[in-house]
């Protein structure tokens, strides 16, 4: 994937997410919402003189968040102009990390001010109080099994097709697969759909919110929220399955980088559009039921900064978020602690992998011909081809004409390294530097194919002359 394509996809993912979060976390008409900056919206807040103070806190937080969102959008647009995949990946990752840390700051400050106001008004949170509607308990669901099984089954059928093609059980004319690349790519998309399905199932079974003493109101409110979520998930699953079909067709008929980039961009754009519809519907449901709220299950004290839930008396692992969309984890739950550690480790792993990517891009490749062997070396990777093992050798002027796809290894703008599927043969060893187009194709007596190049066309040519 090109550096620009990567940047564009990151832009399409990040910018709408930032604005969706802004709209959801900082609603203008705070009186119409169940929560204000992560604090339960109590009747006392809507009465004078507290209403003016709440209005000021909300508008201040909203203004700060708007400025931050605007700056994030501008930075994201500037990052589109960056060159070099490793540098771009590094800067984008750091930027996303910083944005994730900074975006909630106005919310956390506003939440603290709201909690202060709450104390000033003499409102005491019902610590440890749990409201449950006996009539809706376990009976409000919107995610029908058949609605998620069908799109997942369609996706699975395409994955099975890819596996069969990669195993050569079935063949298509001029198919561009091999080395299980298609299986891995499509399996990943399909598994993503499966994980989303699992998450949606958990959310569909989550505790129903109690907003009224009237069970019918509680049932309708929770049903509306869960149906909105179910519709969003089913929509995503169908999109995922349709996209699986499209990428499989791309594998069959051959893919151009441009088409891959456009299709991923369109896929992400549709997901974002779907998220916007989901958020707008959720806001409308909250506004519609705001006047019906007569009971408040006040657990504000258990929300750190309105974002992190820590309640040792609650045995549930997943709870509805006070900030943003969906559910979050109870950090006091043993499972929550494990997830927390996993998230920290993932973050460290991401940062380390970016450092590794930077090293890959900045470390030059070396071709050495001595002691009767050719050695291709970069970082920890080394290919050794003894001269007497070479059966055939040819020089190519333009590696971009090679039809190749990566099976395992590195596939960057500036470096191709590892096992590749090249010109209909699987398991070829590739050690190429794409900015220079020349390459050497070596076939060994044991039948292995190597595609190698030096850092420059001259170095490649020189190595070829010596090997010949």
């Amino acid at each position, binding site marked *: 994937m090109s550096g620009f394509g990567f940047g564009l996809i990151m832009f399409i993912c990040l910018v709408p997410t930032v604005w969706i979060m802004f709209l959801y976390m900082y609603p203008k008409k705070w009186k119409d919402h169940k929560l204000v900056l992560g604090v339960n919206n109590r009747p006392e807040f809507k009465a004078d003189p507290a209403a003016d103070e709440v209005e000021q806190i909300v508008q201040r937080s909203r203004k700060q968040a708007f400025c931050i969102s605007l700056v994030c959008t501008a930075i994201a647009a500037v990052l589109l102009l960056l060159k070099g995949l490793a540098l771009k990946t590094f800067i984008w990752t750091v930027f996303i990390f910083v944005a994730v840390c900074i975006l909630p700051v106005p919310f956390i400050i506003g939440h603290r001010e709201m909690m202060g106001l709450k104390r000033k008004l003499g409102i005491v949170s019902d*610590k*440890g*109080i*749990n*409201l*449950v*509607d*006996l*009539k809706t*308990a*376990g*009976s409000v669901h919107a995610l029908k099994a058949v609605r998620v099984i069908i799109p997942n089954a369609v996706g699975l059928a395409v994955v099975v097709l890819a596996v069969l093609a990669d195993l050569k059980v079935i063949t298509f004319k001029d198919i561009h697969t091999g080395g299980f690349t298609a299986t891995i790519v499509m399996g990943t998309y399909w598994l993503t759909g499966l994980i989303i399905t699992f998450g949606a199932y958990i959310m569909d*079974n989550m*505790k*129903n919110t*109690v907003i009224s*003493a009237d*069970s019918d109101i509680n049932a309708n409110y929770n049903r509306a929220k869960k149906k909105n979520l179910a519709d969003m998930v089913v929509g995503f699953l169908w999109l995922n399955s349709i996209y699986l079909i499209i990428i499989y067709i791309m594998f069959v008929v051959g893919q151009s980088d441009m088409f891959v980039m456009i299709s991923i961009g369109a896929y992400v754009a549709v997901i974002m559009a779907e998220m916007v519809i989901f958020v707008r519907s959720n806001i409308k449901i909250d506004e519609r039921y705001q006047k019906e709220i007569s*009971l408040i299950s006040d657990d504000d004290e258990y929300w750190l900064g309105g974002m992190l839930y820590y309640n040792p*008396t*609650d*045995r*549930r692992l997943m709870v509805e978020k006070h900030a943003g969309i969906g559910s979050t984890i109870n950090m006091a739950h043993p499972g929550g602690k494990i997830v927390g550690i996993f998230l920290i480790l993932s973050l460290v792993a991401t940062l380390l992998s970016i450092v590794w990517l930077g090293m890959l891009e900045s470390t030059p490749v070396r071709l050495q011909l001595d002691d009767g062997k050719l050695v291709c070396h970069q970082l920890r990777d080394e290919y050794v081809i003894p001269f007497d093992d070479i059966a055939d050798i040819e020089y190519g002027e333009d590696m971009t004409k090679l039809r190749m796809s990566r099976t395992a290894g590195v596939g960057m703008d500036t470096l191709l390294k590892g096992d590749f599927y090249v010109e209909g043969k699987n398991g070829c060893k590739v050690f190429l530097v794409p900015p220079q187009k020349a390459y050497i194709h070596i076939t060994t007596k044991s039948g292995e194919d190597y595609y190698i190049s030096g850092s420059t066309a001259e170095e490649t040519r020189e190595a070829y002359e010596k090997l010949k």
Partner: protein
Amino acid sequence: MIIRIDELSDVPIYQQIRNQIVMGISDGELKAGEQLPTVRALALEMGINTMTVSKAYQQLKMEGYIMTDRKFGARVRMEIEKQGSISDTNKTELKRIVSEARLSGVPKQELLRLVEEYYGKDSQD
């Protein structure tokens, strides 16, 4: 019917569930024959162990307020046996409440008014 569970109360949670279901039946919020949620669903909703809910249901069943069935789950009994007397435990509890009210200076009329309110003015003596 809304159940309010106080996680920090000295009263065990199963007892709180039991008490509130009894109050719900008495108030008419839970009708005769009405289906109760399954043990698992209620435990999930409350964020507590299924054993706790199961214990509450067992006690309610033993006391004759609900009936349980493998096929239909737990339901409020159609006919609750009317013993016509207050149990010794409840008498002791009532005595404690009256004593505390007297020590707090609550007038007797106020207590009787509350009893009438909770019992139901139109109920037959």
